[in-house]
Every structure is written in C-alpha cells, then in structure tokens.
C-alpha cells in the first residue's frame, strides 16, 4: 500500500522545525530515519498530513563526550552509534546492543532518537535508556526541558512528548566504577524484533556485595519494564549464582505482565524473561568483577 497524501517540509535547522511543529501540531510528524514511520504510513496506521523531515538538520547529528558521559544527537544514525569508538568506550552496553537492532540496512537509516521517540515496546534503545538513566532533551517553540528516560515512556508507543516537541539530544551518564553490564534477547529470526530482551547493569561495592543493580526488559509489556523487585532482592547481597537465579525468578514472576501474540505466548515470554535475567545478570556481575580487578 501507499501512504495517504501529506505535505512535506525539509527545515534546515531546529528552529524552523519547531516552528513547523508548533504550527501543525497534532497533524504533523517529524520524519527521522523513516524505518518505523514510513511502514506505519504505508499500512495507513498513521496518517499525518504534514511531515517535517529532520534529515537536513545538521545540528542533530553528533556523538560527543561531556564531563559525565556522552551526548548523542537525535538524528545520529544507529549505524554511526554502533561503529563509534566513543560509544564503545563510554557506553559499552549500547555498543553491545546495537547489532541486535534490525539489520545493517535499517540501522544505516534508522536513528538513535527516532527509536527512542517511537517508543515501540519491542525496541532495544528505550530499554537501554532506562537502564542507563539516560536523560532526554526535548524542545519546542515554547522552550526546552530535560526528561529522565524512566519518566519518558508512558504507554504503548506513547511518550511524555507533546506533538509540538522534538527530541533533540540524549545524555548518557558514565557507568559508576565497578559496574558491569550485559544485554541479551531472543528473536525468532536474526534481526527481528525480540520476543523478549533484557538489559542489566550491576555495581559492586568494595566488599564485593551488590551496591546497585538495574534490570530492564523489552517486549514483555507496553513500555520498557524495570524489574524493581528483582533489583531490590539483589541490592546489598553477595552476587552468587543462587541469588541471580532467585532474582531472575522474581523478575519473571512479579515484575512483568507479558502478553501473547502469534510468535510467543505469555507463558513463554515469562519463561524467556527468567532465562534472560539469569544470563544478563551473571554476565554483568562477571564484568563488574573484571572492572573491579582492573582498577586494583
């Protein structure tokens, strides 16, 4: 199918883009990589009458270091993030996860900010943003504000942004010392959206106990799901295999409420959530120990 008719604007800077969004509001949509928006328009699931193409706004394409981490421009291609040595060094969890997102062709076009703004519950980047305590800078002609990732996701494909707002920049804080990370997912096919996925970070205290743990799922709820009860179970304890197993069980049993579709039943998703939690937590703990050793 082909999309319904729409007007097309290609602003050259953020200000122009914001003016257009301010003028057209609910009828307008920003066009980033188009890898989600264009298919939904072709299926007529979305019928914006105005497209504001962000691809010509150079100031939205960047990856740079800040004092406390990384700053990534919303239009930075997913492929650029995947290949960035800076991201590999300062946000290794993102680096590890990028190849799981779709296929190289799609990552060549799809953007970091587009994925975050699209808020697909099966997407990896929103879950990572919550895991890493990312902050998102949102602008409109009315002004700008910073939103914590965990406050950004409200519902299925729904974020805290207003129709006249644009996501412009994402701040990724550095991981604390003695922190390990891991990401894993299970998809039917190479490159498909996952039936379930999980990201974790674990920070060890000097005495080897878990000072902080973060476990966030994708594809098991309407938005990134933080396994708060499992995290609480882990905190302050020695990271043994038994503890990880108990945390994985708690996460799957109490922290999530997955749904069924033609690819996986709710039961199976819950089971995958347990398996994935066990795997990412174990790997995160191992890496935390290694970084602790490195620094010694």
């Amino acid at each position: 199918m082909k999309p319904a008719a729409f007007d097309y604007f290609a602003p050259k800077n953020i200000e122009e883009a914001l003016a257009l969004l301010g003028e057209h509001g609910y009828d307008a949509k920003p066009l980033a990589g188009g890898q989600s928006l264009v298919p939904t328009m072709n299926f007529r699931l979305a019928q914006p009458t105005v497209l504001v193409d962000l691809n010509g706004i150079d100031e939205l394409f960047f990856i740079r270091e800040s004092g406390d981490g990384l700053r990534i421009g919303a239009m930075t291609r997913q492929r650029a993030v995947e290949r960035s040595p800076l991201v590999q060094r300062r946000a290794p969890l993102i680096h590890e996860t990028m190849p799981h997102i779709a296929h190289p062709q799609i990552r060549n076009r799809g953007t970091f900010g587009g994925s975050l703004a699209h808020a697909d519950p099966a997407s990896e980047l929103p879950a990572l943003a919550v895991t890493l305590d990312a902050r998102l800078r949102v602008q409109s002609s009315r002004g700008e504000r910073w939103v914590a990732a965990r406050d950004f996701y409200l519902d299925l494909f729904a974020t805290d942004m207003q129709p006249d707002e644009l996501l412009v920049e994402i701040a990724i804080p550095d991981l604390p010392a003695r922190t390990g990370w891991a990401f894993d997912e299970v998809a039917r096919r190479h490159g498909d959206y996952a039936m379930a996925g999980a990201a974790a970070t674990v920070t060890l205290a000097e005495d080897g106990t878990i000072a902080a743990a973060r476990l966030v799922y994708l594809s098991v709820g309407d938005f990134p799901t933080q396994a708060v009860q499992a995290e609480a179970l882990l905190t302050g304890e020695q990271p043994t295999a038994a503890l990880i197993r108990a945390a994985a069980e708690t996460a799957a049993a109490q922290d999530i409420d997955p749904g069924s579709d033609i690819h996986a039943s709710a039961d199976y998703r819950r089971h995958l959530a347990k398996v994935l939690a066990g795997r990412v937590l174990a790997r995160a703990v191992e890496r935390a120990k290694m970084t602790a050793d490195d620094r010694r």
Partner: protein
Amino acid sequence: MRAVGSSIQRSDAVDKVTGRAAYAGDIDLPGQAWLAIVYAPSPHAHITRIDTAAALAAAGVLAVLTAADVPVNEYGLILPDQPVLCGPGSTVQAETVRWEADHLALVVAETAEQAQAAAKLVQVEYTALPVITDPLAALAPDATVIHPHPFSAFPYGQRDNTSNLLLEYHLRRSDVDEGFAQADVIVESTYRTHAQEHAYLQPEAGLAFVREDGRIEVIAAGQWMHEDRAQIAHTLGLPAERIVVRYPAIGGAFGGREDLSVQIVLALAAWKTGRPVKIVWSREESIRGHHKRHPFVIHAKWGATKAGKIIAAQMDVTSDAGAYAYTSTKVLGNATLMCLGPYEIPNVHVDARTVYTNNCPSGAFRGFGAPQGHFAAEGQMNKLAEALGMDPVELRMRNVIHDGSILATRSAVPAGCTAEEVLAEAARRGGWKKNGIGYWVLGSETDAAPLRNTQYPISIARGVGIALCFKNVGFSLGFPEACHAWVELHGTSAIERALVGCVGAEVGQGAHSAFAQIAAEALGLDVAQVEVVAHDTDVTGSSGSASASRMTFMAGNAILGAAQQALAQWQDEERPARADFVFHPRPTSGYDRKTGESDPNITYGYCAQVADVEVDMATGHVKVKRLISVNDVGRAVNPAQVEGQIEGAVAQSVGWTLLENFIQKDGRTLTPHLSNYLIPGVADVVEEIVPVILEVPDPQGPLGIRGMAEMPFIPTAPAIAAAIHNALGVWYNELPLTPEKVWRGLSANPFPQE
C-alpha cells in the same frame, strides 16, 4: 567442453541480475485497463445479492463482472469444483463462498487506483454459514457440507455429496495384525505437519488482451502452459485454440503456480471489455489468495523384530484440502505411499483421506505429500531404532528398498534404486562408520556426538540426526504423462545453429539452460549454438508441468528423441532439418480403490541428509550448524544449478521445519505479510550446507539424468527432529519446531539438569 556436466552460466542470468528480464508486472500494453478483485465477505457464506451499481458509476470504471458473466463458472486442475466468481446468476455451487479469497466480482477501470476504489463500492448481502477449519471435525456426520452439489466432472468415480470427504485411498498388504503379533517392539505416534506459504519473490501478476487474430492471449507466470490454456478455455466456453498462454520471466513457483490465480479473470475481463487488462497482486493478496502446502495428521503404528526388520506398518493419514480440491487428491496419492518411507514392509495397512474445510486450499508445493509422509515414516524409524537399541542408520540399512523390492502397492521398485547408496554416503559424511562386525555406528570421535553443557545460566545441547527419502519423478498413478519437443538444425555443410522448441516452464530452476545443454550434448554443438524456444503455447504441444521433479527428465528425453531424428534428417541432407518428438515414459497405474494395488510411479529419486543441531535448552532455540545433503541426480547436467537446487530446497525446508508458521483462525489468515509469516533470512538457514552429488544413472533418464529438485526438501524436517531428539532426548512429532514448542517439550520431559 562437454555441454552436460559443466557449470556453465545460465542463459537468463544476466537479464535477471541486471533487471532486464521482464516479469509480468514489468510488462505494459498500450491502452491497458486495470483489474481489481472483490473478495468474499466471509470464509463461508451463501451470497444472496451483489449490487454493482455504485461501483459501475465510479470514476474510470469500464465494467463490473459477476458470476452471470462467466460462461462456464467452474475450474480446477484436477476437478472443476471452484467457481471463477461466486454469487447469484450462474450455478448453485457458485452461490456459496467457501474461502476468504473467493472472488465475487471483478472491477475493470482505467487505472489500478480507480479499480481498487470502485471494488470497495460493491455491496454484498449474504447469510453466514458455519466455518469449518478442522478436517477431522469436517468429517463429523452433522458437519455442514461444503460442496453439497455434484461437480460436472469427478475423476474418481462416484463422489458422496453428503460428506466433506474429497477422496480416500487404502493400501493393504498381507495382514498387519499378524505382523504386529510377530513384532518385538511397536512404536506409535501421531505426527502433525503444518501449512506452508510458497513465498516466491514475485507475487501473482498478469495481462490479457484480444489479439488481432481474435485469439485471447494471457501473459502470466505458471508451471504448465497447456494446462493453463485448457482451464481458461473451459471457463470461457471457447476451444483451446482460441487461447494463447505466454510465460514471461517467472519469479519462482515451487508448486504455487500449478493452480490458476489471475489467468482466468484476466482473460474474462479482456474478452468482455475488449481492452488489454492488467493486474498485480499485493503480497497480502498473494499470501491469502493462493494455495498452501497441505497440513497433515498422520497416526502411525510400526512394529519391528529384534533382528531389526520392520514387520508391520499401520497408518491413518488425513490431509486438509481446504476449500477447493486443487491437487489435493494427487498429493494424497503420494502421501499414501510415501508415509511408509523407502522401506520394504511386509504387512501394511494405510487409510488415507483428504477432506474439504473452509481453510485456504492446499495444493502443490515442492515434495507434494512426500515431506509430510516422510516426517512420519522417518520419525517411526528413529523411534524403532531407539526401542531396539539399534543405530538408526543400521536399522535403515536392514530395511531399505533396492531394485525390484516389492512396495506396499505390490509392484516392484523400478531399476536404478539408490536409496542405500545415498544413505551410506550421508552416514559416512555425517560421522557414521561400520564397526568390526559390519554394523553402522555413530563414530565417537566425531564432534557431532551428543554433547551437553549445562552450566547455569547457559545450557547448550548438541545432536545429530539422519533421514532418508524417496520421491517419484513424473506424474503418478496413471495420470497421463508426456512431453513434446522439437529440434530444428540450421547450417549448410556443418550444423551451425539449433533451435529447440520445448515449453517446459523456466520457473527459476534453470530448466531452459538445462534443455540447451542436453540438446548441445546430443548434437555435438556448443551450448552457445543452441537456442531454446519456449515462450507460448503455439511453440509446440504440451511439455507437461515444471513439477514433480520431472522437467529435466521428461524434456531431456523428448529433446534427445527430437535431436536424434533431426540428426537423421540432417544426414539425409534436409536443410533445415526439423523433427518433432513426443516422449512417453512407461505407463503407471492408479491405486485399486480397496487394496491400493498399482504400479504407482515411473521412477524415483533418492536423498539422505544429516543435520547437526545446537539447542539452547533454556530457550528452546534450535540452530542447525551443518546440513549434509546427499542426492543421487543420475547425472548433473549443470552441477552449479544442482547445488543451487539443493541449497534452495534446504533453505525452504529449514524454514518449514523451524520457522514458518502459516496461521489461520476461523478461516481467516492471520499471517498475510512477510513481516509476520517468517521466512528464513540467510543467517537463519544453516551455518553450513554441504551439497553432495551422486551420479548413478537412472536407466530411464535421458543420459542417465534423474529428477532432483524436490528431494532435498524431504528429509530435512525428520533429520532435524532426530537431531533434536539426539540432543535433548525428547521426540517432537509436530511441526514447526518453534522455540516455544521445543521448550514446552523439554519442560514436559525434564532433562536431568539444573
């Protein structure tokens, strides 16, 4: 360079790679109009009224056609049970829709957009009927009968109009009860296989127009030109000569183009409007609108003696024909025999049936009943081997058919049987060897031996499995089989150029290149001197379908016959020399309706495969690490093309086994897109496919050639299931082996871990 046996470049390669080749959708005719189809409002309903007034009045609309406009409103490859258009105005049969993709009306308009917009304006009134989706439920005495009216023709005697049973077959050999009484072990299981979508690259498309000579020409991809022509002519009430069928470039077929899709409606629309008419189906229309591989339920009970001889096999086989017959009766015929595998079994009892439902019709798809039958047969062999404590290769070796073995049909296996050879070669390459006393055993030094790593939270199990198959080459069970070809030789003293007329379809398998290679070999020419003429039904008589692994075998024989006669004329100084030849293979015979006695097939091809798998025991995800496929092809006309066929078949078969899941609910397709009907990408197939070509000549084959294109599809599913069993100790009897299903099997049969 010898023409046959060389991996020379295909004649269509450059055009297809550069985009120059014209598929039907690429062709435009001056003054063409466009066609849109109005589909059924419900999968099963009595249509009481169709109001076309609003559609007719819409912008650009030239005509709206309904059942009343179809001269003979019935068609079908084997039997004419399908209306061209459903609704009032023609026959009682046509008043009912039985399938979500039944056609109600055709809208012809100046543009595709206008036709589609007007199609939405056609108003339909109907009474819904119960939707029957389970073939076993369809057989219940009180089930609504989907086809309560007699057909104008039914090639299997008297049909019972009060039942949804389409056809049943029975095989009886000796006495199974006595056989089971002698058995030391008996294994019993119910196997279920699922529908599969062909997912060819090119969705259905075509054009039709009335030529200056008054004949109607239809340009659309198919697999058998002359059969397409006969069916189109039947519905229009015209003699076949009034129709010309032309095949443009064809983007894959796999059996999915054996039955008609857009051809009749195009011809009708062009004939009624006098305008050239074009249609291009969307992927969704294609997935909803053409048939699928048959789902089967097979209940199997097999017994064997301690000596490893199968003594009895009892099979109860049911296939879901869907709403219309398509080739269901023929697929059933194959499955009835092939559910016994390539084995000598002295006592046999098979009851097999195919049943109408309101699901998408089932029909031809690479393997044609053999993959489903072998999934059960090879599953039974593996279970017998386990019950006997015998190696699965050794058990197969003790029962495998040879030349002259008597099949359950009480007829002999045709000469050239190499089931044992392909099995032995696959076993050797897969890590088996003969031990000191000459028994086949899985060598312990191979890294494919079961291996389990269960360190929480990672737990991986590896396994190896083997399976064997046979598959008929050519049409079965008395269906008339023939192939036309002609050869024309040009030159003065020496032959400079040869034309080969043979209209076997080039569906992407490389048939036309193979025809040229065989002709060049026979004529002592370079392949570049041979031109294949194959574009339409006027070129020659019927060459039969590009199906049943028959095209190279049949056309090769026909081309060799024509080449020899043309050469004789050349010797007699005729310039150009031209000879027509019709090849008739040895006749076969249909099943006796009570006992199944018959000489079912001309000849067979053989394939054995070994699968090495790795299973993530926690998630149930199966990865095929290596798949060895040993095929006896008699003689490889073009080894690169043979390898391509093996790799393609394995990709398609791994997809069927592990991934593809065509889901219908209440007669409606839930997976009409390639985003939810998952076909494998290159990274999902197999890490390493090892194609192995054996060349043991088939005595009936041209230059020894055997058909080979379906065979490497057939053993894949049972080989993978055996490998998973080897890894996990769990039998899986139901396809597809999705991660969730594998996990459920493991949870129900916990492996001593954790």
